[in-house]
C-alpha cells in the first residue's frame, strides 16, 4: 500500500485557530502524525521583561480569551505568593464564581463546536444559546463578556451585591434546566454515539505517561484536577473531580458536560458561603523570588513559573498551558484511525492554539 501525506490544517473548518498536522495515510488509515506549530506564536512570555508586573495581568489575560480570567488568577496568585499577600476571603470566593462562569462558557463553546464537528448543527446552536446566557452574566457583573478583567494583585476589582447574586442564581437555574434538556441528545443520541464512542481511545496508563491534563486526562480515568489543591477557596467547597474511564471522544464530551453542571454547583456553594468584607487589599512593594503556581483551566492544568528580582519587571514568566500538554496524547491516539475521524478526535482534546502559542 502506498503512503500519502495529507495536510490537515492550519486552516480547517473544525479549527477556530491555526494548527497543522502532516498526516501520513495508507488507504484511509493514518499511520504517522507530525504536528507543526508556530503560525501565531506571539512571544507573550517575553513581554514579562519589558512590561511592569502589574501590566502583565492584562497581558496574561490575552494569552487566551476563553480562559482569560483563569490565566490572570493564576498569575495574581503567583505574585501574591511572592509578595506574601493573603487576599480577603470574599475576594477568593469571587474569584471562584467568575472562574467557574469562565469554565462554563468555555465548555459550552466546546460542546457546540464538538457537535458542529460531526455535523449536528442544531445541537451546536442549542449549546451556544446557553453559552450566551453565561456571557450575559459575565457582562452584567464585570462589564465584559469574555475578557472579564476582574483580577488584581491583592484581590478582585469588582464586587457582587446580593441582588446580582440572586440574579446569577436564577440564571444558573435556567442554564441547568436547559442543560438537562440537551443531556439526552448529547449522551444518548445515535448519531452522536456513532461518531464518538470508541473513537480516539486514550487509556489511563498512556494518558498518565504522556502528561495529559484536564478533561482529556479525566475522561481516561485519571482523577487529576488542580482544584483539588484548594487554591482560592476551593478547600472550603465540596468538590470531587468528574471522571470517566472509557477514554474516547464520547467520554471527553461527557466529562465536559458534567463539569458544566459541577460549575453551577460550585458557584451556588460559593454564593452560599461568601462572607462580607473587603474585596481587595492594597499591595505595596515589588515581587522578589521564584515561585510555581497551578490552577485548573477549562482545558486542564495551567502552570506558571514566575521569577522576580525586586524590580518592576519580572525576570522570567513561564506559562505551560494544558493544550501544550495534550498534543503528545493526540499524536499517540491518531495513528490507526480513519482519516474521516480526525476532525472529531482532534477537537475532542479542545485544542486552544492561542494558549499553546503564547
Amino acid at each position, binding site marked *: 500500500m502506498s503512503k500519502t501525506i495529507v495536510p490537515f490544517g492550519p486552516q480547517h473548518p473544525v479549527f477556530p485557530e491555526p494548527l497543522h498536522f502532516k498526516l501520513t495515510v495508507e488507504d484511509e488509515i493514518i499511520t504517522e502524525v*507530525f504536528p507543526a*506549530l*508556530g503560525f501565531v*506564536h506571539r*512571544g507573550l*512570555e*517575553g513581554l514579562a*521583561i*519589558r*512590561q511592569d508586573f502589574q501590566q502583565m495581568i492584562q497581558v496574561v489575560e490575552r494569552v487566551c480569551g476563553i480562559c482569560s480570567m483563569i490565566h490572570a488568577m493564576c498569575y495574581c496568585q503567583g505574585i501574591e*505568593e*511572592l509578595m506574601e499577600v493573603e487576599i480577603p476571603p470574599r475576594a477568593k470566593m469571587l474569584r471562584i464564581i467568575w472562574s467557574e462562569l469562565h469554565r462554563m462558557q468555555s465548555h459550552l463553546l466546546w460542546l457546540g463546536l464538538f457537535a458542529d464537528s460531526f455535523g449536528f448543527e442544531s445541537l451546536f446552536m442549542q449549546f451556544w444559546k446557553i453559552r450566551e446566557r453565561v456571557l450575559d452574566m459575565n457582562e452584567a457583573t464585570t462589564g465584559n463578556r469574555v475578557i472579564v478583567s476582574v483580577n488584581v494583585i491583592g484581590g478582585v476589582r469588582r464586587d457582587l451585591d446580593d441582588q446580582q447574586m440572586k440574579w446569577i442564581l436564577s440564571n444558573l437555574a435556567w442554564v441547568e434546566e436547559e442543560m438537562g434538556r440537551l443531556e439526552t441528545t448529547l449522551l444518548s443520541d445515535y448519531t452522536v454515539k456513532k461518531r464518538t464512542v470508541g473513537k480516539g481511545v486514550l487509556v489511563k496508563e498512556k494518558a*498518565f*505517561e*504522556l*502528561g495529559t491534563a484536564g478533561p482529556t486526562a479525566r475522561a481516561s480515568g485519571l482523577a*487529576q484536577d*488542580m482544584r*483539588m*489543591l484548594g487554591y482560592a477557596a476551593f478547600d472550603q467547597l465540596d468538590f470531587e473531580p468528574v471522571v470517566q474511564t472509557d477514554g474516547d471522544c464520547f467520554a471527553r464530551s461527557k466529562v465536559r458536560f458534567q463539569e458544566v453542571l459541577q460549575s453551577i454547583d460550585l458557584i451556588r456553594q460559593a454564593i452560599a458561603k461568601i462572607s462580607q468584607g473587603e474585596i481587595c487589599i492594597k499591595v505595596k512593594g515589588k515581587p522578589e*523570588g*521564584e*515561585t*510555581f503556581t*497551578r490552577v485548573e483551566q477549562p482545558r486542564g*492544568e495551567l*502552570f506558571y*513559573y514566575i*521569577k522576580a528580582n525586586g524590580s518592576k*519587571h519580572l*525576570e*522570567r514568566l*513561564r506559562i*505551560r498551558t494544558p493544550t*501544550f*500538554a495534550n*498534543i*503528545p496524547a493526540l499524536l*499517540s491516539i491518531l495513528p490507526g484511525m480513519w482519516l474521516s475521524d480526525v476532525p472529531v478526535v482532534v477537537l475532542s482534546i479542545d485544542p486552544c492554539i492561542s494558549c499553546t*502559542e503564547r
Partner: protein
Amino acid sequence: MLHDVTCVSREALVGEVAKIKVQGYRFVTLSCVERNEENFDIFYHFDKNLSLKHFKISITRGLSVPSISPVYFAAFLVENEIQDLFGITFEGLVVDYERTLYLEPEIRSTPFCRYTVTETPGVGKAAVVESSTEDP
C-alpha cells in the same frame, strides 16, 4: 516559593528522570531561565498526587543538554521550544525540529535571551550585549 528542588548534573539528569518515572511521577513541563550572560537554569517539573517535584540543572551557554524525551515522550515539544527561544541544544530529541518549531529556518537569533552573543568580524571573539528591558 520554591520547594522540593533538587539540583542535578547534566550527566545524571536522564538517569534521575528515569528513576522518578518508575516512582510514578507525571511529566509537567520544563522552565528555562537565563541567569546571566553565561548561564541558564532549566527546571524539570514533575507531579505525583498533586505534589510537585523539580529538578534543576545549570548549564553554561553553548553547552548542550541531554534530552529527556526518550524517557518522557511529552518533553519533546517543550525541549524544541527551548531550542527555539533560548538557543540551547538538546541531544537525543525524539522529534527534533532543529529550531523551526516557532521560528523560520533562516532565523539565528534567540528571542527570549536578554543577552545576545555575537561574533564581531575582525575581532575574532564573541561580544556580549545586553538588550534593553524598556519599551522602545
